[in-house]
């Protein structure tokens, strides 16, 4: 019973936070290479 309740209540807030950080990391890495590209022209 306790487990069922847990299952219903569960919202993946941590996973959302993780995912947002993942996108930020991705954009950060990508744009730093993009910057290198513009610098090397």
């Amino acid at each position, binding site marked *: 019973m306790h487990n069922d309740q847990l299952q219903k209540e569960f919202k993946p807030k941590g996973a959302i936070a993780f995912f947002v950080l993942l*996108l930020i990391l991705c*954009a950060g890495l990508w744009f730093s290479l*993009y910057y290198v*590209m*513009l610098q*090397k*022209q």
Partner: protein
Amino acid sequence: MDKIELRVMKLTAGMLAIFLLALLYASYARNVGMPACVPYSGVFSKPHLQQIDSNTYEAFFVAKMWSFEPSDVYVPAGSDVDIYLTSSDVVHGFNISEKAVNLMAVPGAINKKTVHFEKAGIYKIVCHEYCGIGHHSMEGEIIVYDKTK
């Protein structure tokens, strides 16, 4: 698939769309292009440097086991150089890291990229595709000199 997962997909697609727009911006507004597609002709298999006008050059490179010809090219600072590249034997690489000139020399096909050399200096060309036992000693130079000196 719940609401959160749909949002995750939209966010990802949005980020990738931004990347694509940034690439198109670089391509059209900042002139960061892909190698151009040049039809094949025997003309490109004779290595030489040719001056077009005061600050434009055409460099015809031929990569071969295990050197570039010409192996050193002299141009004044401020030049635009059209690099044409082919190979007379196997596949070679042609990388000028400082200028992000990253080309493959492929037998039977002609590669082209235009580079602007603003600063004087020695720009090393490194073969970065395995081309046989002498691969690690295959390199060349573009020497950009200062006109005023």
